[in-house]
């Protein structure tokens, strides 16, 4: 009896040890992959505080020199461009949350002729690549004299098939009886959407909002085409053009990159769970 007990205990011990070994191995293999993602960002941050005279001789800075950050905020157009980016990305986010939740409401709660056809027409736009529309869009807004304005950056992104799709996926989880009951009590569709559906959809709306904001914050080509003055230019254009203007001031450029990454990375950190779950709800069920 005792022999058997010892045997099982030894078996357990070795098994635990083997598991620990596997965990260690896992960590060791994970580390280089984490580094692959992290190093470019850490390097950028390090270059932004490297004193200019050490650029060619040292690898690790002897001391941190934050003067380039002061310069970014006082001598460049970056602060104005950050403001522009916030205005544009914020407006697009709010606008899309409104248009997408309204359209998704019609597609999931209301019955009307041609509902499926219209929904298909909207989903089909996901297949159309941006380069098939961008030339004509550019010519259109140029003819309307919209170039160099906020509206030209905001209105073309006023709605998205992805947003409608995500919100509809979420609405489909609501019980139909909820809508019927509200209608019988004399609640209009508008009020039902505003005071029942939307408050219950906060997680989905948050995920959609974070997704749209990130997309707009990182948008590059459209703002590049339709803006030419710093009054409306967004920060991505400003940062990307710094290499041409200040090719010698490398840490200024790197500080600008860090500054423009901070908002999007903070949104990612704070909204990570919500954002990932929201995106997955669309992907897995769809």
């Amino acid at each position: 009896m005792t022999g058997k007990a010892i045997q099982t205990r030894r078996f357990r011990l070795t098994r635990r040890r083997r598991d620990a070994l596997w965990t260690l191995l896992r960590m060791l293999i994970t580390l280089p992959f984490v580094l692959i993602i992290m190093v470019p960002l850490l390097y950028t941050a390090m270059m932004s505080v490297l004193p200019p005279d050490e650029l060619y001789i040292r690898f690790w800075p002897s001391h941190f020199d934050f003067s380039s950050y002061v310069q970014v905020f006082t001598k460049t157009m970056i602060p104005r461009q950050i403001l522009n980016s916030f205005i544009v990305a914020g407006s697009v986010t709010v606008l899309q949350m409104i248009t997408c939740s309204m359209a998704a409401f019609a597609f999931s709660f209301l019955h009307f002729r041609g509902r499926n056809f219209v929904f298909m027409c909207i989903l089909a736009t996901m297949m159309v690549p941006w380069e098939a529309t961008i030339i004509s869009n550019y010519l259109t807004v140029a003819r309307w004299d919209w170039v160099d304005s906020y509206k030209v950056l905001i209105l073309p992104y006023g709605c998205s098939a992805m947003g409608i799709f995500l919100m509809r996926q979420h609405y489909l989880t609501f019980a139909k009886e909820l809508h019927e009951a509200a209608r019988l009590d004399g609640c209009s569709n508008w009020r039902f959407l505003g005071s029942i559906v939307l408050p219950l959809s906060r997680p989905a709306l948050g995920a959609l909002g974070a997704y749209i904001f990130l997309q707009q914050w990182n948008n590059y080509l459209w703002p590049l085409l339709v803006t030419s003055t710093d009054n409306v230019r967004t920060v991505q254009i400003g940062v990307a053009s710094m290499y041409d203007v200040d090719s010698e001031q490398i840490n200024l450029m790197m500080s600008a990159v860090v500054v423009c990454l901070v908002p999007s990375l903070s949104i990612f950190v704070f909204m990570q769970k919500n954002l990932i779950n929201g995106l997955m709800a669309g992907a897995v069920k769809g």
Partner: protein
Amino acid sequence: MTPSPVPSALVKRKRRRKTLYERLEPWLFLLPALAVFVVFLYYPFFKTVYLSAFLTNRYGEAKVFVGLKNYTDILTGTRSGEFWNSIWVTVRFVFFVTLGGLTMGIVTSLLVEKRFPGNAFASAIFAMPIAIASSAASMSFKMILHPSIGLLNKLLGTQVNWLNDIRYTFGVICVLAVWLATGINFIFISAGLRNIPGELYESAAIDGANGWDKFRCITLPCLSPTLFFQVIIDVINAFQTFNIVKILTLGGPMESTNTIVYSIYLDAFRNFRFGSAAARSIILFLIIMTVTLIQFRAEKRSVHYS
């Protein structure tokens, strides 16, 4: 409102014809969305098709109807060499970036699948590239690849001009694209992994399956719908990659990174040949459509749905 018994109200609602407002109401909900789609998606799409049949002036106004001449010029005419090169560059780019993105996605999500100290942190890092602007990342890589002070040359002890050397530039661009695609691949593939029922692994373990067997016979088949979906996303994204080419290489050296998308940009917004650029975009649209349809066809044969 006069109180009325609920059942009769229900019956009444069903029999009554809908009022005009009730019939219009759904369209009111759709109006803002449809307005955006019509003005900035449907109309410009058909206008692009229309423009592709014309010679245009500097302002993009259609001037001379030329039928399919823009297309034949690109496909077989004087500029066909440049076009077919851009197709070849794009096809290779799409292939390597999709393969690399999927590999990174599978490896990273398998690594953090089991709990270990720091696995939540590693997951956050692997998902992070979705938040990083490709333009900002391109600027970082521009420094890393800098010929004299860049990190890569310092680490390797070399003096390579990574962004202007025909042997390396294409590869470097692919690596950056894979780096940027890691986030979305990781998120979707690890979601797919989490959806595989744990009992499958348990019963396989009882049957004496080793780790490789489990991966081959359970993980891959159960993951195949996710992987299929992810391949489509990766292919479409790779076809449309523009920012990193624009910021890092401008299509060079010697057009070795001149993707179709970049050549469309040059044609339209540098050379103001809007008709020809429109024709190129339609060709690209048809390519992407065809590839996606072929993938859906292939899905039926190779993807396993439980």
